[in-house]
Structure formats: structure tokens, C-alpha cells
């Protein structure tokens, strides 16, 4: 429980920094800190699926923010001296993190249950009873449209919301021209 409160404090501090700082890049990094703390919180709360999604989304968000900031503001990115030294450091850091990641992923992959033997009882039930209960040979369809139909309804709602949002925004944008739709 203590680590959750510590994380919460870090997130609060990072959020304050993100909203108060004048440096946009620092704000983006602070925002990333908040997001990754949320990912760690998900792991602590034993929700690994959400943690994976959060890590992917947060990484993409930080990359996009950084790209946009670097393109739209004048940040001095020219490096005049010490280039070789920096390149060597980049390569060393890349190799170190790559090796660490590889070692971790090998360890993780050995923990995954074997194919067709899911850890959760409910999944075992889906695999065994799918054909008999639904009559659908495609087990994926049987799960997403029958056992988990409610989830799929949510997904369809997400798509519907996206379409409604795009149509609304684009209609507003094009309304400025009289005579066109």
C-alpha cells in the first residue's frame, strides 16, 4: 500500500511540473512520468493487461508530443562538439537496454503457459464448450460474439463514437463554405 502512496506523490509532483513549467519538452516528459506511474500502479493492482496497454499508449503519446514540440518550437538541437562521444554513449545505452530487455523477455516468455492450456478456469471452459454451446467453429468468433458479446458491444460503441466525432468536426469545418453541404 505504501508504494501506491509514494507513486501517487510522484504523480502529483509530476502533474504539477507538467502544468506549471515553461519548457514544453519538460512538460511532455513530466506527463510521461505520470502515465508510466499509472502503468506501475496497474501492475501493483494486478492488472497486467491494462498495464501493457497503458505502457504502449503512454510511449506513443510521449513520442508524438515530443515530435510535435520539436517540429513547432525552436529547440536548439544542433550539436557542434562532442558528437563522437555522444554517439558512443547512445550506442552503449542502446546495447545495455537492449540486452536488459532481451534477458527480461526471455525470462517472461518461459513463464507463459503452454498453448491450449490457459491458466484461468473460465478460458478452459470457453475452449472446451465453445463449439457445443454456440455451434460456431471459429472459437474467436464464439468468444467475442457470444460469451463476451458485451465487450464487443462496447468496441462497436467506440467505433460509433469515433465516426460521430469525425463527422461532427468535419461538418463544422466545412460549414464555413456556403453552398457546400
Amino acid at each position: 500500500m505504501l508504494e501506491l502512496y509514494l507513486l501517487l506523490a510522484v504523480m502529483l509532483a509530476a502533474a504539477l511540473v507538467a502544468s506549471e513549467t515553461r519548457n514544453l519538452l519538460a512538460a511532455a516528459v513530466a506527463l510521461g512520468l505520470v502515465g508510466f506511474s499509472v502503468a506501475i500502479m496497474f501492475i501493483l493492482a494486478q492488472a497486467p493487461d491494462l498495464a501493457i496497454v497503458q505502457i504502449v499508449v503512454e510511449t506513443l503519446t510521449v513520442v508524438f508530443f515530443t515530435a510535435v514540440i520539436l517540429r513547432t518550437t525552436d529547440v536548439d538541437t544542433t550539436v557542434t562538439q562532442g558528437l563522437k562521444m555522444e554517439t558512443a554513449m547512445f550506442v552503449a545505452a542502446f546495447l545495455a537496454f537492449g540486452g536488459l530487455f532481451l534477458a527480461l523477455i526471455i525470462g517472461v516468455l518461459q513463464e507463459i503457459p503452454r498453448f491450449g492450456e490457459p491458466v484461468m478456469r473460465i478460458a478452459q471452459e470457453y475452449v472446451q464448450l465453445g463449439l457445443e454451446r454456440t455451434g460456431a467453429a471459429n472459437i474467436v468468433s464464439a468468444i467475442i460474439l457470444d460469451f463476451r458479446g458485451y465487450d464487443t458491444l462496447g468496441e462497436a460503441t467506440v467505433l460509433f463514437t469515433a465516426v460521430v466525432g469525425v463527422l461532427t468536426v468535419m461538418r463544422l469545418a466545412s460549414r464555413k463554405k456556403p453552398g457546400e453541404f
Partner: protein
Amino acid sequence: MRGMSLIVQVMTGLLAGILLLYGGYIILHGHLTPGGGFAGGVLVAAALILVSLAFGAVEQVERREYILSSIFESSGGLLFLGLAVAGYLAADYFFRNAGLFYIGRPLELVSGGIIPLANIAIGLKVGAGLFAIFLALGASRFVMKE
């Protein structure tokens, strides 16, 4: 956009029908083979987008295309919701399938209860929805450029 060269247009004319057919096949066989409403709907939308890119239909886009896409998208969503609610009304819980709808013999085309119907609904929804997004983005860019 005034459409693309003659080669692209002829190729599109030959390919678009096959793409649409394949999309329909993926949707209708969703309960038998890999794929389903989402994948098949994307194929259908891709065929429609291919035609409108190759023949430059985007600049002549009018209310009709928008409204048709919206209607198909919404009716797909309503059909899916209707299947869920039908199970609720008839047998007291959402997405009731076994014992209420015709399950049939596995591996036949007409089998699986609501699953093929739900695949058709999702296919309609995804295909028309993606095409509507494409129309909105393409048409608004054209309007803004004028």
C-alpha cells in the same frame, strides 16, 4: 483529386468487385473461418475507398454518400444492439444465444445462432463507418483547399 491514370482505373475496375466479394465472404463465414465482422468490414471499406480514389469520386461527394454511409453504420449498430436486447427480452439476459436461436450443426453455413447475424451487423458498421470517416476527411480537405 481528379482520379488516377487509366491503368489504375482499369485495375480498380477489375479488382473492386473481387475485394467486395472477399469482404462479404469473410463477414459471412466469420463463425467458421478466421476473420469476422471487423476484418471483413475493413475489406469492404477498402474496396469502396479504392474505387473513390481511383475514379476521383471524392470531389463529387454529396450529401447522399454521407447519409447512406451514416444510415448503414447506424443500422449495423442498431442490429447488433437489437440482437443483444432480443436475448434480454426473450430469456432475461444480454446476448442469449443457446436455446433461443437456431444453433444448427457446427461447420455449416447456417449455424451458430446469433453469431453470423452479429458478424453481419458489425461488418455493416465497420465498413460504412470507415468509409464515412474517409469521405469526411477527404471531402473536407477538398473544401478547405478551395
